[in-house]
């Protein structure tokens, strides 16, 4: 009982805060747009030669890239959302949740889920725009893609929360997030297929939860995938669960000294 109430109210809080902070929302949506427009349109002319689509599993480059943009939006939005934990430290609200009798797991899961829901909504907005740029995407794949997106978001909000519980300054947190964001994006198959990567990059890509979200969503949106879509969903679920469990554990042990 107490668990559900606390979970629900933390979702309520995160969504309510999201609605009142529109500038942050705008940035997370603009970023992928910049990528797809400048990077995507630029390269799509380079990959215009006969046989080029074979590199991208039979897709033209702009469709290939567009199908990855929803994962990118959700990934970036959810990872950085952990910064709100640091704000809560600075503005004191975290203490309010630390002295509450509600189970800490409920508080942190509710918080992660609330942020996940908002980033999936952003991902949905980007996806709608992608249909304009890449008309080849499949409408029937939207719902499954959003479900994958929710799992991806849970994983990376949790990782963001874990990191921000350990960092006391927004600068420190943002540094580590920026340091991880770009390599994880490049080793996920969003911009180019994993099969063409050097072996050491492949190795990283295989443990990157983003890889399976990208591949799974691409399967639903274009019919093309690198792995078996069932593997995608299973591995994404496992990695997400691991990251979520880590966040719960870290928050359960949190004291005011951290």
């Amino acid at each position, binding site marked *: *009982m*107490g668990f559900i*109430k*606390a979970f*629900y*109210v*933390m979702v*309520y*809080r995160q969504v*309510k*805060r999201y609605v*009142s*902070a529109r500038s942050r929302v705008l940035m997370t949506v603009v970023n992928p747009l910049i990528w797809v427009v400048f990077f995507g349109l630029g390269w799509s002319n380079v990959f215009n030669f006969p046989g080029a689509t074979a590199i991208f599993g039979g897709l033209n480059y702009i469709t290939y890239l567009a199908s990855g943009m929803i994962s990118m939006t959700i990934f970036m939005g959810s990872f950085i959302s952990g910064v709100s934990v640091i704000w*809560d*430290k*600075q*503005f*004191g*609200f*975290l*203490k*309010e*949740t*630390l*002295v*509450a*009798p*509600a*189970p800490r797991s409920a*508080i942190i899961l509710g918080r992660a889920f609330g942020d996940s829901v908002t980033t999936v909504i952003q991902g949905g907005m980007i996806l709608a725009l992608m249909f304009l740029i890449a008309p080849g995407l499949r409408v029937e794949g939207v719902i499954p893609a959003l479900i994958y997106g929710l799992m991806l978001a849970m994983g990376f909000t949790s990782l963001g929360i874990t990191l921000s519980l350990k960092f*006391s*300054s927004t600068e420190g947190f943002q540094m580590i997030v920026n340091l991880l964001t770009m390599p994880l994006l490049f080793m996920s198959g969003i911009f180019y297929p994993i099969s063409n990567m050097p072996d050491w990059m492949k190795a990283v890509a295989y443990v990157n939860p983003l890889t399976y979200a990208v591949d799974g969503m691409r399967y639903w949106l274009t019919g093309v995938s690198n792995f078996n879509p069932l593997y995608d969903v299973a591995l994404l679920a496992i990695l997400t669960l691991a990251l979520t469990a880590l966040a719960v554990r870290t928050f359960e042990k949190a*004291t*005011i*000294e*951290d």
Partner: protein
Amino acid sequence: MVEYAVVAENLIKRFKDVVAVNDVSFKVERGEIFGLLGPNGAGKTTTIHILTTILKPTSGKAYVAGYDVVKEPAKVRSKIGIVFQDPSLDNQLTAYDNMFIHGRLYGLNGDALRNKIFELLEFVELKEFANKQVRYFSGGMRRRLEIARALLHQPDVLFLDEPTLGLDPQTRVRIWDYIMSVKKERNTTIVLTTHYMDEAEELCDRIAIMDKGKIIAEGTAEELKSMLGSEVIYVKVVNNASCVEANFIEKCVRVRENLLEVVVKDASTAIPKLFDVMTSKGLKIVEVSYRKPTLNEVFIHLTGRELRDALEESGRPHLGPRAWR
């Protein structure tokens, strides 16, 4: 047998190189307002953090509402309300939402929660601002909102950490009124910390004076002041002071090397006599002041420093709250 709302037994909290709380023990009876008075850095906030389960003591035991704060933190949390020294509101949400979230975290819901929220917002005179975002609130309004929030789940024990810090005099008096009516109307046990002597004297049934991590005196304001007697004269001399004796002097203590504390019945007649006695002993007086004993004099008596000076010299050492930044 008296049941205690709060029991602290030999609490010690060590941070890396500072002992913030050094063997602190006290008991608070049900329905009492108990004050921890002392300068910043005395260990008051750290003590409160231990009692409210968000900091683990290095050693020692503490029980709040009958539960062990280390072994049964969830039970303790459901019985206490706390107003932290630093604000802990969500600025981006409305006053109502801050209360609502708190209520749900404490297991309340539905109409009961809604009614309770408005009742308490009315109590702290914020009802008309219920749907305004907290970031537009003044310091006093925020503090009142935090008090209302802490009362939402009807705690047995209410902790107030420096409840009027940084507020203007009128607002302080208003907060005091709320605190007194909480005690009167709900019979809530209140533990508060303060470095304002007037606040401790005004509100607290019993006061523990803390300095450098230790409780150095404990009792009602009257008991503490009676440690000093009727009136106190402070005599500053040029060089090393030594105590003087005479039949009109009840007590003489050398609190600093050039400062004497002389306790007498009636200071206005004693001062001229004191001049004679001291001159005859060859002590050259540079400054004389006298006061009716207040808690400040008690603090000087116990530590040789003014509470005010102690505030300046301590300048907040790197203890708990600082580690947040």
